[in-house]
C-alpha cells in the first residue's frame, strides 16, 4: 500500500514537471504552429544556468529566476534570428529547423559545461524527507508545489492580463490582431520566449533529482511530445491532464513492467493520433490555449 502511494507521488512529481515543459510546447504550437524540437535542449540549458547561479550566489530562488529570464532571452533570440524567416511555410519546416538547432545548442552546452554528469544539490531547507503517513522526500513535494504555482501563474497570465489576451488572440486569429494594430511578430517572439522560459524553470526544478547532462532533455522532450499529442496541440487544459496521466503511467509502469511502460505510452500516442488527431481536449473546429 505504501509502495503504491509513494509511486503515485513519484508519478505526480514527474507529471507536474512534464506539465511545465509540455505547456511551453503547447503555447508555442498554438500560437505559431511550431512543434519545437529545441524545447528539450532549452530545458537542459535552464538546468545548467541554475547550476551556475547556485554556485555563484547559493540561492535556489535566484537560480529559478535567472533560468526563467535567460532561457526566455535565448528563446526570443532563436525566434528572431531563425524561425521568423520561415513564416508562411509548411509547419514541418519549423520542425526541421528546430531539429537542426537542437544539435547546435546541445553542442554549445557540451562546449561550455562538458559531457560529465553533474549534480545540483537540493537547497538545504528542502533536503531530507517528511512523514505524511508515508515518508517522502521534501524536495519532491517542493517540485510538485512549485510546478503548480508556476502553472497557476501562467494560467493567470494567459487569462487575466492584456498580454495573455494578445497571446490568445494571436492563437485564434493572427490577422485580426495585426489589423487591430498590434505587431503580431512581437507577440510571436514573446510567446516563444514564454514557452522557452517554462522549459528553463522545469530544468532547474528537475536538476537536483536527475542530475545534469547535455542530453538530459531528450527523453523528457519525447514524453512532452506525447503529452501534447494526447492533450491536444495547443491546449493548456489538455496538457495538464495528459501530463499527469503520462507521469503516473510511467511511475507505475516502472514498478510493474519496466521497459514496456514506454511501449504503452507510444501506443496511446498512436491511438490518439489516429482517432482524434487534434487531441482529446480540443474541439475539432477550434483551438484553445
Amino acid at each position: 500500500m505504501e509502495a503504491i502511494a509513494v509511486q503515485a507521488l513519484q508519478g505526480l512529481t514527474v507529471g507536474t514537471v512534464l506539465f511545465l515543459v509540455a505547456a511551453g510546447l503547447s503555447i508555442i504550437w498554438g500560437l505559431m504552429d511550431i512543434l519545437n524540437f529545441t524545447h528539450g535542449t532549452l530545458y537542459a540549458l535552464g538546468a545548467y544556468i541554475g547550476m551556475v547561479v547556485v554556485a555563484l550566489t547559493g540561492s535556489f530562488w535566484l537560480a529559478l529566476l535567472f533560468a526563467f529570464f535567460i532561457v526566455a532571452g535565448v528563446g526570443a533570440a532563436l525566434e528572431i534570428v531563425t524561425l521568423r524567416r520561415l513564416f508562411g511555410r509548411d509547419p514541418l519546416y519549423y520542425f526541421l529547423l528546430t531539429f537542426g538547432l537542437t544539435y547546435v545548442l546541445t553542442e554549445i552546452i557540451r562546449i561550455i559545461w562538458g559531457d560529465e554528469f553533474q549534480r545540483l544539490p537540493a537547497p538545504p531547507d528542502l533536503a531530507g524527507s517528511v512523514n505524511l503517513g508515508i515518508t517522502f522526500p521534501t524536495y519532491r513535494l517542493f517540485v510538485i508545489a512549485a510546478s503548480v504555482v508556476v502553472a497557476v501563474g501562467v494560467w493567470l497570465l494567459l487569462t487575466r492580463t492584456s498580454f495573455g489576451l494578445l497571446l490568445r488572440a494571436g492563437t485564434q486569429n493572427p490577422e485580426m490582431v495585426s489589423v487591430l494594430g498590434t505587431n503580431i511578430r512581437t507577440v510571436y517572439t514573446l510567446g516563444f520566449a514564454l514557452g522557452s522560459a517554462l522549459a528553463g524553470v522545469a530544468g532547474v526544478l528537475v536538476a537536483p533529482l536527475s542530475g545534469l547532462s547535455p542530453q538530459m532533455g531528450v527523453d523528457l522532450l519525447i514524453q512532452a511530445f506525447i503529452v501534447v499529442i494526447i492533450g491536444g496541440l495547443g491546449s493548456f487544459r489538455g496538457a495538464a491532464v495528459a501530463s499527469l496521466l503520462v507521469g503516473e503511467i510511467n511511475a507505475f509502469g516502472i514498478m510493474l513492467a519496466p521497459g514496456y511502460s514506454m511501449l504503452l505510452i507510444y501506443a496511446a500516442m498512436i491511438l490518439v493520433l489516429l482517432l482524434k488527431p487534434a487531441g482529446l481536449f480540443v474541439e475539432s473546429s477550434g483551438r484553445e490555449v
Partner: protein
Amino acid sequence: MQGVRAIPLPAPAQYVLPGLMVLLLVLVPALIDRFLPSFYLALATEMLIMGLFAMGFDLLMGYTGMVSFGHAAFFGMGAYVAGLTMLRFGLPFLPAMLLGILGATVAAAFVGFFAIRLKSVYFALLTFAFSQIFYQLAITWTSFTGGFDGVALSMPIALGPLNLRDRATLYFFVLVVVVLCYLFARRVVRSPFGTVLLTVRENELRAATLGYHVARYKQVAFILSGLLGGIAGTLMVPYQKFISPDLLFWELSGLVIVMVLLGGMGTLWGPLVGGAVVVFLREWLSGMGLIGKHHLLPLGLIFVVLVIFAPNGLAGLLARRRQPLLDDPDATAGELATPQPTTQPLDAEPRL
C-alpha cells in the same frame, strides 16, 4: 504552380552523365588503393549505403511530399531481420538479406496503412511513434535482439563465392545494389505512377478529383520507400558486422531528412549525393581535433542554413546555376519541389 515539364534528353545523352558517374565509382577502389589508406574504402561503402537510404526516402519526402520522422524503422528492420536470422537461425547472407527486405516492406505496409491517413506534422509524429515502438522492442527484448548493446555478427558473410568480409568485394556488391535500386527508383518516378505522385504532392485535392485513388498511391509510395530503406539496412550487416538499436533510433530518422534536404528533394540523385556528403562530413569533421569532438555543431548549422536559405539543397543550387540541366526531367522535378517562397503574407493561414 508550374506544370510538369517532361522534355526528355535524347536517349543517348540521358545516359552519359550517370554512366560516367558509375564508371568513376567503379574506379574508386583502385584509386583508394593507390592513394589513400584502405579505411577510405569502408567509408566509401557507407556513403553508398546512406545514399541509398536517403534516395529511397526521397520517394516519400521529395516525390510524394510526406515527411516521415520515423524512417529509420525500416532501415533498422532490414538490418535487424537480416542480422538476427543469420545469427539465431544460421541462414546464409542472401536469404537473410531477402528476409530483411521482406521484413522492412511488411513493416512499411503496416505503418503506412495507418500513417497515410494523417498529414504534415501529425504524419511525422505518427511515423515517429511507430518507429519508437520498434526501437523500444529492440532494446527491451534483450534475449533475442541483444538489447541496448546490440549484437556482433562474427559468422562468415558470403554471397556464393564472394566473401563480403573483404572490403573491396563488399564495395562492389553495394555499388551494384545501389545502381540497380537507382535504376528502379528512376523507372518508378518517370512512370505514370510517379507522375501521379507528383500531382498528389502538388495538389492532393486535384489528384483526387481527377479520379486517382490518392490513398492507394500514398500507400504504395510509402511501401516502396520502406523497401529501399530496408535494402540499405540489410547492407549494414556485412558493412558493420554488428547491429545495434542506433539503426532504429529517431536520430537516424532525422539525419535522413537532413540528407534529402541537403541533396535536394525530388531528384533521386540529389539525396544519393546528400547521403554520401553527410557521411563524409561527419567522418571528416570528427577527425578534426576540437571541431571533431563537437562535429554536430557545424552539421547542425549547415542544416539550419539549408532549411532557411536553400530548401532545395545542392540539386537546387546546381539547377539554378546551370540552365541546361533544367531540361533534365530530374532537375525539373527538383524545381517543382520548391516550397512556396516566403513572399506569402506574414500571417498566412497555417496549412496542415
